[in-house]
């Protein structure tokens, strides 16, 4: 039985559908309103507020904290300055992804790592021989994601003493709500301008109330997971256990993925580093990866034709689908699409997929399985560049 997050009194009151999903043991609203599309559009055009407290959060401290985080992460943490945040996957010794998350360097020897799965034991196992302590702060730290083009202006109503205009993408800043401290990081899972707010669980409700209040006039809506799933597919952001299997859950060799295979090769820094899995990844780089993570755009004409055969207009899901479907090329299965969506803003049927490396060239053609009136068909799709949606405002500093 899930429990409420520190924001539950607020989210529960607003959740008109009472449609909840269990997320790491907490109730998480799937959709606050009858149509989740309102929430989706609010993020792309105004702002949405999402309770991300169920994320696992770890604080790593001690004189060797930097060394430990660098040992765990595929990104070079030595390059991460205080006040900076980096996104990185982390691997087991065979170079297979365990999880991915953000790492905020809150001080010279203090880091906060977010994770989708429990990782305390793994992080502690990695800390042998180092003066570094790993503490699970998941319960004591509540977190909100404020996402959308109006996010900055909303925060500026509340936090007048800090310069949010100049807070760069993937950086964090300390702020105060009354007498209570919190951290604001310019991060998110929507591919849009957005921030995440990290505060002690005791002060969670006060923060929610302040943000909702400040959001009036900015079109702020509470954001549920259904809309979030659409936003993250457009942003080309993968999801553990949907788009890849964690090495801690994989049971057969084909279920394991290296970061390179799931499109995170850019986050693997092998030069002069000895992080866990580095050796295996060096070898993989040399011999080449077998699979690649790609975006797909399904041909609307092809869909139209398939449905036309049964005298129906194309039926596409209104929500992101997590039902994996096979992909083909030359009559052979060459991979699978794991997240699919008709993007309301792009007006395209898009998918995140894993394909054999030979079929990963942008513009390349594959076929995706489509079920038309209970019959399996194949529709043409083209490999597309990720992310599908990438507005300048995501990374840009405010115009002063």
């Amino acid at each position, binding site marked *: 039985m899930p429990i409420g997050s520190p924001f539950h009194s607020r989210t529960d009151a607003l959740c008109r559908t009472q449609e909840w999903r269990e997320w790491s043991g907490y109730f998480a609203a799937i959709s606050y309103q009858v149509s989740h599309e309102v929430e989706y559009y609010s993020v792309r055009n105004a702002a949405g507020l999402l309770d991300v407290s169920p994320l696992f959060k770890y604080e790593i401290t001690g004189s060797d904290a930097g060394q430990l985080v660098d*040992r765990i992460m595929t990104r070079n943490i030595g390059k991460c300055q205080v006040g900076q945040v980096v996104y990185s996957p982390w691997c087991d010794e065979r170079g297979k992804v365990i999880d991915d998350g953000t790492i905020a360097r809150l001080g010279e020897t203090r880091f906060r790592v977010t994770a989708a799965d429990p990782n305390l034991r793994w992080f502690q*196992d990695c800390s*042998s*021989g*180092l003066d570094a302590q790993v503490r699970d702060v998941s319960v004591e730290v509540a977190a909100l994601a404020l996402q959308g083009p109006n996010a900055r202006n909303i925060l500026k109503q509340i936090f007048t003493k800090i310069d949010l205009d100049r807070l760069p993408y993937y950086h964090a800043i300390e702020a105060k709500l009354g007498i209570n401290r919190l951290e604001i990081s310019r991060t998110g899972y929507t591919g849009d301008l957005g921030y995440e707010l990290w505060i002690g669980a005791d002060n969670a409700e006060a923060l929610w109330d302040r943000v909702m209040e400040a959001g009036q006039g900015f079109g702020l809506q509470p954001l549920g997971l259904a809309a979030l799933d659409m936003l993250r597919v457009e942003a080309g952001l993968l999801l553990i256990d949907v788009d890849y299997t964690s090495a801690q859950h994989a049971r057969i060799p084909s279920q394991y993925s290296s970061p390179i295979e799931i499109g995170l090769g850019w986050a693997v820094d092998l030069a002069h580093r000895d992080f*866990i899995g580095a050796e295996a990844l060096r070898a993989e780089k040399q011999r080449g990866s077998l699979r690649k993570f790609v975006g797909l755009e399904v041909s609307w004409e092809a869909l139209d034709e398939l449905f036309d055969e049964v005298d129906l207009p194309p039926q596409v899901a209104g929500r992101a689908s997590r039902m994996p479907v096979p992909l083909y090329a030359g009559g052979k299965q060459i991979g699978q699409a794991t997240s699919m969506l008709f993007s309301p803003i792009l007006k395209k049927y898009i998918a995140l997929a894993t394909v054999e490396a030979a079929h990963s060239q942008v513009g390349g053609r594959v076929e995706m399985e489509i079920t038309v009136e209970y019959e399996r068909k194949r529709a043409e799709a083209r490999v597309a560049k990720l992310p599908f949606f990438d507005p300048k405002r995501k990374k840009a500093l405010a115009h002063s």
Partner: protein
Amino acid sequence: MSQDFDAIVIGGGHNSLTAVAYLAKAGMKVAVFEQRGLLGGAASTEELFPGFRFNTGLSDAGLLLPDVIDDLGLTAHGLDWLEAPALAFAPLGAEKSLTLWQDLGRTTEELGQHSKSDAQVFARYTQQNAAFGALLQEMAKLAPPSLQYKPLPLLLAWAKVAIRARRLGGRRMMEFMRVLPMGAARYLDEWFESVALKGLLGAVSVSGLLQGPRAAGTAFMLLYQQMGSTGGYMAMKTAQGGVGAVSAALASAAGSYGAEIHTGVRVAHILSENGKALGVELVDGSQVLAKVVLSGAEVRHTLVDLVGASKLAPSVMRRLRALKLRGSTASVHLALSGLPKFSTSDNDNERLTGDIVICPSLDYAEQAYDDAKYGRFSARPILIARIPSLLDSTLAPDGEHTLSITLRYAPYHLRGSDWGNEKERLGDLAVKVLSEHAPGLKKLIKQRKVITPLDYERDYGLTEGSMMHGQMSLDQLVMMRPVPGFVGYRTPIEGLYINGAGAHPGGGVTGAPGRNAARQVLKEI
């Protein structure tokens, strides 16, 4: 000191010296570094008091592989055995005692006074154990295969052992499989009725273990201790000059093949880069490089302290942390002004030429373990004493004697106290318990030295005082030794091998881990 060797061996225990000798004999340029001033490690004979020389760790070399003696020509290097007529003497109080002799007829005769039935089956028992022990000795000579490590020549060698096992005959082979994982107490109960005999034999079954004789797998230890022997007690061989003479002969052999042997030189680190061993750094900061590094030190110490925990994969650390070391043996060494008199020995000093065992029953042993389970040393401990000077006059001044007592159980981890406080109390206890059978003992004591598990760790480099470099329990044997996943005497650090008792087959003065590791290295480079 010359730089750049083919192989560097860490620690100068008997297994390391064996490895060094084999490697040097094969033409490799080898150096060994021992932190103590003398060689031998747990197989040392030390002059603790002027004129009195003691076996400070293990007291006997009965398990030493004949192959090691032959391959390295140890006899030519001064190794000489003494004949001890007695295997073990168990004073039982109330004018009773039990002695097991080298001569089976004499043992049977003596046993008849305790149990007619035991006397009748004892010969059969020794035959069976000798057959099983011989089989274990064959296994001790081979690297264990595993799922990840199964080169064809190794599998063929193990197939030969399997054929040998098959030749025992169907019934005996089944019996072998049945007995190995059993508790020694049950195995002995199946054979014998004499409480005293079972106690005496049971004392052997917990050698180096923090387990009572009823624990699963202690029957294995009972048989392991009989590798290469026929007497039904333990494989026993007394080296002239003490057990340290074995180490000395090994060192002499190694030296004759050109190995460099350094004592009083401590290795501070094992140098490694990108998961490959490069050599060692000594405490003075100098670096010595080599193609391969072998460690006779305990495996967790070797990897965590010498290589460095941060260079080890988390899964390796997890396995090393799970390793059960749990030393629980202490020793008490007495310089005596004369030979102690045992009230039940019939003034027959021949009885005292082997072990003197205080373990009157299996219950006694089990109860001794009960204390240790809860972090106390045994209120009534198992004692295995020896008076080596009785056979070997070089160990003590004329007319005087040395007596060494091995005491179980003295757990490394004491609850509510520490060895600083308990050390001399333990010495008093050992003397008190032995004095119950040798009333004049106390008056003969000129000097006494107690060595606790903590001392074995600090002074002998035995982590947690574990002389066997890890419990030889069922879960830490053969391919699970030193830890699961380490195969072929290798470690996760390429070019770093384990040659000590932590590796298969395990503890005791066998030379087997040293020999096997050296052979493995020679195969691989």
